[in-house]
């Protein structure tokens, strides 16, 4: 059971994961204790899974940015466990970064990350496609990222406002 406070905290953390408990409490007009307790509970209940950072890898210079691919996977569901047992096998691979069951002409949409095209190809042909219940795969390499989790990638316009206005 989540409370209205939980939701208001999550609204902030969803986009500003680095907000301090004090800042969140101030913004919501709540006590530090209540906010802290709520966050603790959300973490313990597996509602907050991770605090992550959205990065524009293309700007990094010291390392080659990772290659990503979206893979459509057709699956024959298992008798008793349906898609879930197959999904669990796929999701455990650390290079699978996102994994959804979707409606439409295929079953899973899997986002895979690797150091190179070969790396990903090896994973698809060697691991993913050979799983017993996987019928077929179609791999789409990602060429450019425009937006991720609500964040627009690329140069942002500065604040066009005048410094002082009535």
């Amino acid at each position: 059971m989540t409370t209205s406070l939980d939701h208001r905290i999550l609204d902030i953390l969803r986009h500003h994961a680095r907000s301090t408990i004090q800042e969140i409490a101030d913004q919501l007009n709540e006590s530090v204790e209540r906010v802290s307790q709520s966050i603790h509970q959300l973490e313990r209940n597996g509602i907050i899974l991770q605090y992550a950072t959205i990065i524009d890898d293309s700007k990094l210079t010291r390392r080659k940015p990772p290659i990503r691919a979206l893979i459509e996977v057709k699956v024959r569901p298992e008798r008793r466990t349906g898609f879930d047992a197959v999904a669990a096998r796929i999701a455990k691979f650390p290079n699978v970064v996102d994994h959804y069951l979707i409606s439409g002409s295929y079953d899973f949409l899997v986002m895979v990350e690797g150091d190179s095209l070969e790396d990903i190809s090896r994973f698809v042909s060697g691991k993913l496609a050979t799983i017993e219940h996987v019928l077929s795969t179609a791999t789409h390499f990602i060429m450019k990222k425009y937006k991720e989790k609500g964040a627009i990638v690329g140069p942002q316009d500065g604040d066009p406002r005048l410094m002082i206005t009535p």
Partner: protein
Amino acid sequence: MTKPFNRLVDQVPPSGIRRFFDLVVGAQDVISLGVGEPDFMTPWAIREDAIYSLEHGRVTYTENGGLLACRQAVSTYLSDFFHAHYDPHTQIVMTIGVSEGVDLVLRSLLNPGNEVIIPEPAYVCYGPLVQLAGGRPVPINTQSSGFIPTVAAIEAAITPATTAIILCSPSNPTGRSIPKERQAALLDLAKRHDLWVISDEVYAALSYDTPPVSMGSFSSYQDRVIVLNGFSKAFSMTGWRLGYVCGPPELIKRVIKIHQYCALCAPTVSQYAAIEGLKHAHKEVEKMRVSYLKRRNLVVHALQDMGLPTLVPEGAFYVFPSIEPTGLDAETFALQLLEKEKVAVVPGTAFGLGGDGHIRCCYATDMSQLTEAMARMARFVKGVMS
């Protein structure tokens, strides 16, 4: 040229905010809490619709009063969100921002020497526009009543020449809202003295603690209430210059008469974009409102923690703390804060009577900048007070 310029224009004092603007513009790395507009871009759906209307050549004049579709959308919006009912054919006119609306209304109402009561601190245009319309602004100081005008203070300022009262709620610069009971009492006062009530409600949609109450929703006073509103604040459309005036048909006729000669019509692209905004942008507007609310809370806490007495603003995106504990006057405080900590705020004195000892901080700035600005201000205040 030796001919004198217009006397009324020359009598209007220079803007207090302008002087401060010149100082800030030269400075580097300043965090400005001195702006009077949202930090959000106009919602993309609205901008996209404007592009579409340009592509389809909707670039001609509209009717003087504004596109009927736009007035209809305004009428529906006011009725749905504010329970204020205006006939789009006879009671609404689209203007070039609320500012033009104020000007048109004052020019429609005032005869030479008529007085207009303005509770101050107030938005900077009211007094000068009253003067330019040939009237006499009568400011009253609301500082002692928490920046909310009282019936007694306004009544004390009424003379046989008084024609109108201008109210702005939630207020720029204080963010305070007039509670509903006070609104009713003020309307009653206006009725007893046969006065117009000009109600600038451009910040109404940005109300945080209770739903906004439009002066236009008190149906028994509709013959003397003039509601001004627009798209700049709630829809983040400052540069689009679009507002509207709502009032009794006899007034609106006169407003349109002036508007048709001095402006012809409000910007066409903006009117098309506004229709899209009124119909489909409410979720975006609500998101912005919630975001301002969080920032308001953060800033109020921060200012109170600094030891600056701060009334909680019910709306808009301004907070108006007292800086009296520092012993500095408003201008000195603002100047020193700018020099020492590179944070720009506007001295309360720029907004007329009752602004002394206070500063206006606009919190429509991104959260990290805001947190940094509050940290810098806290350091400054601590330094001054120790």
